[in-house]
Structure formats: C-alpha cells, structure tokens
C-alpha cells in the first residue's frame, strides 16, 4: 500500500468527524501560532533596538564620569570623585595614538527663541571632531570649527526639527537666535537623522564646547566620545584610554568606558534569550495540543475497533493499521501546524499594522521549527494509539460492537 493511499484514507476518516478534527487541530493551531507570534515579537523588539542604535559605530568608546561598580562595598567616604574635563579630552587626543577622533560633549537643555517662536531643546556643546566621530553632519552651512571653540564663539547649528519649528521654510543661515537668552548666529543646519534611543537627534542645537561651558556655567563634560581608528583595536583602545585617564586622575578610576558594540551585543544576547523563552513557553501549548491529539486518537481507535477488524480480515497487516492511524494523527497535527503558521503570520502582520513602531519580523527558522515540531508532536502522540490499534486481535476486533 503506497503512502498516498494512506493519506487518502486518513483524510476520509478525518472528514467524517469534521468538528472533532477541527477542535483537535485547534490545540496545535494555537500552539504554532503562539510560537510564531511570540518569536516574531521578540525579533521585532530586537529590530527596534537595533534601529535605535543604528548610526552608532562599532568602533566608538564612550567615557562617562563616575564609576559603575560591578562589585565591592559602598564608595569610600572622601574618595576623589573627579569630573571629566577638557584636559582629559586633550590628553586622550594627544596620547591616544590608536584614536581617530576624540570628541568632548557638554549636555544641557535650554530655550531657543527666534522672534516670537521658542522651543525647549537639548543643547550639545561639541568640538569639530563630534561630527565625524558620531557620523552626524551639517546639510547646509558649516559645523563647529576649532576657532569657534577657541574663541568661544556664539554660533549654533540647528537640528532639522528645531529649524522647522523656528523658521518654517525660511532660510535660517546667518539669522540670530537666542539660546538661554544669549544671542547666537546660526551657521549650520543639520541633516535629518531621526530618533535614536528615544532621543530625537533632529531636536538638538549644537554649539561650540567652550561656549557651552559658559552658558551652562560648568567645566564638567557629559561624556567623551572616542572613535578607534581600527575596529580590531577596540579593546586595546579601551585599555589605552583607561590607563591615560587613570594617570591623569591621580590613580583613581572614577570614570567608566563603555564599548558601544559590546553593550549592543550583550543586549542582543538578552533579547535572544527572551525570544527563546517566549518560544519555549509557546511550545508548551503545542505539547498540550499534542496531548489533545492523543486523547482523540485513543477515542477514535476505540470507536473504529470493528473497522480495524474488517481491515485485518481482508489482509491489512499490523503495520498497515499502524501507519493508517499514525498518518491520521500526523495529518491532524500537520494540518494544525499549517493553519497555525498562517494564523501566526496573519497575527504578526496585524501587529505590524497596529503598532508600526515595532518592526515585527517572522524569522523563517521559527516557521520551519514550529511546523516541524507540530508534525513531530503528531507522530509522537500518535504512536501509542496507533500501536494500540495495530495490536488488536482481528477476531476480538471483529466481534466488537
């Protein structure tokens, strides 16, 4: 008896009990759809985070003041807590032979006013290196120059959003705006960058770093960005920056150097784990669906004992009966798997439409895995009932009413 005959027989049997077959499949359908949906959500989250980090180079080191302790007791009272200053930045620039650029950053918020329009925005005090290091460029005009920094010039570059809000379609270059009440000449308008890490890069005003120190009345840097010239030197670059700052801070490690790529990869590890856990939980519901299949197959075998007897009397071998029932359970689970894939895909599509910010993506491996697993579930949970059917004695089966 060839396999296609078995499949035809299985379909026949399932058709005679449509509702029962559908309900049994539902267990598998929900399981498979849940696996696909949850894994897609995990992947979507990963994509979202990835997009947020896009533009941050893998070769960037970020130095921030203060030490993030991973172990040890409370900080020793009186321990020096140094700020990061322009001196630190200068040392890194002078002695950091591995570095392509060192960009000190001052961060503050201020009201920017032009005529009657005003807007509260983030203000970044930067040096010319910021542009290449952070890969953010002016669209028109020019970025902060060295002489701007040295002369503490009151010039500013507007992000796209700021420019639109204050000037509309009018030309902003050369105009004078007020930042925290001080007059600044607009020398540049930034190119569009979009949102990164929940931070609207287009809603920023850039000014020279020394000018910012005056405006915000501080000499403490928010961070120092370092680009390492060669990606492979990222670890030695980090060590170099650490030792340079360690020395200049009187042998106190009161700063933290983070590596963007390392941070990202550890975050992705967490997100991957989350995806697997979600998929695993959904898989449990698939197993429950399998138990439903076993349950129904046991009932079916009981109900069709007489049929089994007839088939055996006319020459069905035990393995013919085994395959027949195994194929029935597998058809149930594979059919459920197929519908589940469909439902999961539709569900993921619906989420994509309803929550456009979350770039839900169905990884092909999730579909393959969920479907394969559902087929396997049908075989696994079908074996016991099918073996029971195959082992029936033909005479007793024929006698069964």
């Amino acid at each position: 008896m060839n396999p296609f005959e078995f499949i035809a027989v299985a379909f026949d049997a399932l058709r005679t009990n449509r509702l029962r077959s559908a309900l049994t499949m539902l267990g598998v359908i929900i399981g498979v759809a849940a696996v696909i949906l949850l894994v897609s959500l995990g992947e979507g989250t990963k994509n979202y985070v990835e997009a947020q980090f896009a533009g941050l180079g893998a070769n960037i080191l970020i130095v921030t003041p203060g030490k993030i302790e991973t172990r040890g007791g409370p900080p020793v009272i009186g321990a020096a807590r140094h700020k990061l200053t322009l001196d630190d930045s200068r040392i890194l620039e002078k002695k950091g032979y591995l570095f392509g650029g060192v960009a000190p950053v001052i961060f503050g918020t201020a009201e920017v006013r032009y005529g009657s329009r005003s807007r509260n925005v983030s203000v970044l005090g930067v040096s010319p290196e910021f542009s290449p290091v952070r890969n953010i460029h002016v669209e028109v005009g020019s970025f902060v120059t060295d002489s701007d920094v040295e002369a503490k010039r009151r010039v500013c570059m507007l992000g796209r959003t700021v420019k639109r809000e204050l000037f509309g379609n009018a030309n902003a270059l050369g105009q004078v705006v007020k930042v925290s009440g001080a007059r600044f000449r607009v020398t540049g308008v930034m190119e569009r960058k979009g949102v990164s890490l929940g931070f609207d890069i287009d809603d920023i005003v850039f000014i020279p770093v020394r000018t910012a120190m005056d405006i915000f009345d501080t000499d403490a840097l928010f961070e120092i960005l370092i680009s390492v010239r060669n990606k492979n030197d990222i670890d030695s670059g980090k060590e170099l920056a650490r030792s340079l700052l360690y020395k200049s801070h009187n042998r106190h490690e009161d700063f933290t150097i983070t590596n963007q790529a390392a941070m990202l990869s550890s975050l992705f590890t967490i997100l991957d784990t989350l995806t697997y856990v979600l998929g695993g939980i959904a898989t449990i519901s698939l197993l429950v669906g399998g138990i439903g299949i076993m349950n129904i197959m046991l009932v079916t075998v009981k109900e069709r004992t007489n049929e089994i007897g007839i088939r055996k009397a006319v020459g069905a071998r035990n393995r013919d009966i085994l395959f027949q029932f195994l194929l029935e359970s597998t058809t149930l689970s594979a059919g459920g798997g197929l519908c589940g894939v469909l439902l999961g895909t539709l569900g993921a599509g619906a989420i994509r439409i309803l929550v456009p910010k979350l770039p839900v993506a169905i990884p092909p491996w999730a579909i393959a895995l969920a479907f394969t697993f559902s087929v396997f579930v049908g075989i696994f949970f079908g074996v016991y009932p099918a073996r029971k059917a195959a082992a029936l004695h033909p005479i007793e089966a024929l006698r069964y009413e």
Partner: protein
Amino acid sequence: MESAPASEPLLRLRGVSKIYEAGEHAVVGLEGANLDIFPGDFLAVMGPSGSGKSTLMNILGCLDVPTSGTYEIKGTPVEKLSPEALAALRNREIGFIFQVFHLLPRYTAQRNVELPLLYAGVGREERARRALEALKSVGLEDRRSHLSNQLSGGQKQKVAIARALVNRPSLLLADEPTGNLDTKSGEELMEILRQLNAEGATIVVVTHDSTIARNAKRIVYIIDGRLVTPDEYRELRG
C-alpha cells in the same frame, strides 16, 4: 463421506486443537480436528451454537492459529506464521463472508470491494476495474456508488461476496451468511454461492441451519469442538 479426488487438498487439518485460556480454566474450542478440503469443494460445517464452528472458521480463515496440530494451506503450514504473514495469507487466499456483513459503513460499495486490493498493493485504476468486475458477478454494478449503509441486507451481503471474490482467493469462507437475511435474499445468496462453486470456487459455509447446509456438496458436523459423523451428530443432538 470423504469423496477422494485425485488432486492435493487445498486445506489440510491434522489433529487441530484450539484451547482458550479463560481465567483459571481452559476452554476447549476445537479438539483434534482432521479435515481435507479440495479445490472445487463446497463444504458445509454444521453445528449448534457454541459447538466450535466459529473456532474452526477462524482457524480456516487464518484469523487465529491452532494451539496444537497442523494446518496447511496449499502445503504451507500456517500455525507457525507471524501475524504479518497470516495477514498476507488472508489477503491472497481467503475471502470472508460474515453473518453481520462487516462492511465499512461510510465507504461506497465499490470502495468496500476494493479494500482487499488496497492491501494487496494494487493500483487505483486496476482496483476500480476489478471491483467493478466483482460487483458485476453478484449483479450489483449499478449500486457501486452507494454507501454501504444505504444498501439492503441482501445487497450488503452481495457486496461482501464481491469483496471476498475480488482478490481471487483460493477459498471463500462464509460464516452464517444468511443469518441476517430474509428467506428470499438468503436463497438468492445461496444460489450465487452455488453458481460460484460451479465456476470453480472452493467454498466453506459454516451454519447451524440444515436447509443452508443442504446447498453444499458435502457436510461435516461439529459438536463440542469435535468433528463427528452424521450418525453421531443425530445421536448427540437427540
């Protein structure tokens, strides 16, 4: 009683016994049965209910194996065969006709008839052709697309005969074939069996009904699990 045709027996039973283990004590279903069935035979096995008729029928039909003794089909000893080999033997050599028909209710007449061919590995078109041929031989070709539970008792039993014939077995085994039929259908059915026998089929009918048994060429009697002579039978039955 034994007419002695020159040919080799199709079936040969020698000292065949069947003992059922039923709880603590054993029940004897069949005891020391000796029987030869030759090609072209039309044999009736007569006995009251509980006499061991069904046991004999099950063993002849390879649905069961004897506890002791030897049973050969075409010279092949059956009692040592595996369940798989027995299934193949049933498929090739035996056609069953049961009292309660035993058709698959949700299958059409034709698909019921095709069933043995399915397990013989015959292809779809060949199956349909041979099933139709078998249905024609019992005069039911116009009912081939009817579901079997839409047929009358007589029609069902004819479908069962067609199914029994379809794989051209060596032996037709009928167990009380008219037991669930009215007199007219029963007579019609026995006529079909006589006809098939006239065309060369070997038939064994198991029955408690002497009017049915009279259709056969020869009759063996069974009582309390033993094959007996007609005289013994009359004596034991009182």
